[in-house]
């Protein structure tokens, strides 16, 4: 379908964009557009206004300071081409390589993926596994939201309608941290039927504070505290991995659809957990 009519505003600055959001209740932010525009073409989204933030220079920042800063408009390709960020967070180029397609990777943004919170997307789980947080700006001021507090439900985050995600911030992992992303893609859409993002810090050969995030199998990126518990204190050997795999689905509300019922999805979850932990 053609999208329904809307007014278009190309924002010159974040303040300009925020003023539009405050003045127009049904306005939506347009970034890379590769989730929003397909939804508008199916009329699942019918905003009365689009505020295009694609040309705001401040939002393109991509740098390593005390932490890793990824601006809202940094595209997937720009992120994986950033040598320092890619080497500090190898799970990022790994996940980006298996998401979408060339054109999605060229225009889609990390900020957009996190704000859109598609339950079958890859990067929200990777972001949460890395214990990242987002900086959001509203006309009332700025605040940060930690990954564990961000995802509320399918396509729903705790970002307010008149706030803009301006930056993703990821702490630099301590040295020796193991990380990997494994995914079973839907053969038609490429989205994650199940994806597992594992970030496993290790000190003196022993795991501590592991973060195992599941996507595709749940309504939002969800930690498997059972798998994390099986790994913490272990030496991440075959036995520890087997234990984590055995319990990864415990406590998770695994969903079902025509491609995969609960049993099959849970099985895929165990397989992807094993692959992620073995390749981390």
């Amino acid at each position, binding site marked *: 379908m053609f999208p*329904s009519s809307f007014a278009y505003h190309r924002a010159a600055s974040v303040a300009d964009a925020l003023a539009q959001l405050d003045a127009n209740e049904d306005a939506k932010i347009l970034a890379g557009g590769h989730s929003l525009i397909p939804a508008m073409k199916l009329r699942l989204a019918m905003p009365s206004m689009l505020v295009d933030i694609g040309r705001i220079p401040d939002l393109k920042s991509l740098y390593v300071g005390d932490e890793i800063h990824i601006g809202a408009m940094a595209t997937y390709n720009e992120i994986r081409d950033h040598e320092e960020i890619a080497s500090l967070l190898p799970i990022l180029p790994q996940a980006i390589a298996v998401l979408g397609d*060339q054109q999605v990777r060229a225009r889609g943004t990390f900020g957009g993926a996190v704000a859109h919170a598609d339950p079958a997307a890859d990067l929200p789980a990777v972001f949460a596994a890395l214990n990242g947080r987002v900086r959001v700006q509203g006309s009332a001021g700025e605040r940060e939201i930690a990954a564990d507090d961000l995802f509320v439900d399918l396509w729903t985050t705790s970002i307010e309608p008149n706030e803009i995600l301006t930056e993703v911030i990821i702490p630099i992992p301590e040295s020796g941290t193991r990380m990997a992303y494994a995914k079973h893609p839907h053969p038609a859409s490429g989205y994650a039927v199940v994806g597992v993002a594992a970030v496993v810090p290790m000190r003196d050969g022993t795991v501590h504070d592991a973060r195992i995030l599941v996507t595709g199998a749940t309504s939002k990126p969800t930690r498997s505290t059972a798998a994390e518990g099986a790994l913490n204190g272990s030496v991440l050997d075959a036995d520890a991995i087997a234990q984590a795999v055995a319990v990864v689905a415990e406590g998770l509300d695994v969903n079902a659809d025509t491609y995969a019922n609960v049993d099959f999805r849970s099985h895929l979850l165990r397989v992807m957990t094993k692959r992620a932990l073995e390749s981390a």
Partner: protein
Amino acid sequence: MSGAEQDTTQRITMTVNGEVRSADVEPRTLLVHFLRDQLGLTGTHVGCDTSQCGACVVNVDGITTKSCTMFAIQCDGASVQTIEGLAKNGAYHPMQEGFWEEHGLQCGYCTPGMIMSSIALLERNPNPTEEEIRHGLEGNICRCTGYQNIVRAVQYAARKMQEEPVSAD
């Protein structure tokens, strides 16, 4: 405030295949429809409504883009290259030559997007393996060929372009 109201059109200007073009569009006009219906550049095709098939792939400001997943108004001030802009002075781009020599098409519907995507692929990776070619073209669906000759066409172009680099537009 700047920007168009709902239901009203706005004048946009962009460079398409090196030529400055202006027209009035509604904000909701997709770039692919602008190119095809308003500029008469029908080489870019519409093959789906879910942004999956890649028949509409063009190049916007140097970025490979599904023109069905961008609004024309977003491209106000941009530089767009379509399949019609590849051949120079009657000489085919090596990728077009590859698709001809290796018969990388049957019905031709996916072909313009397939060629544009393949060029983008070689820009990032000038010497791809077969697996990298197949992975890189996951955003372009072909219902006719089974992809084998498409892969051969891209390999042909990769060899040719390494011998004789194509100058940037």
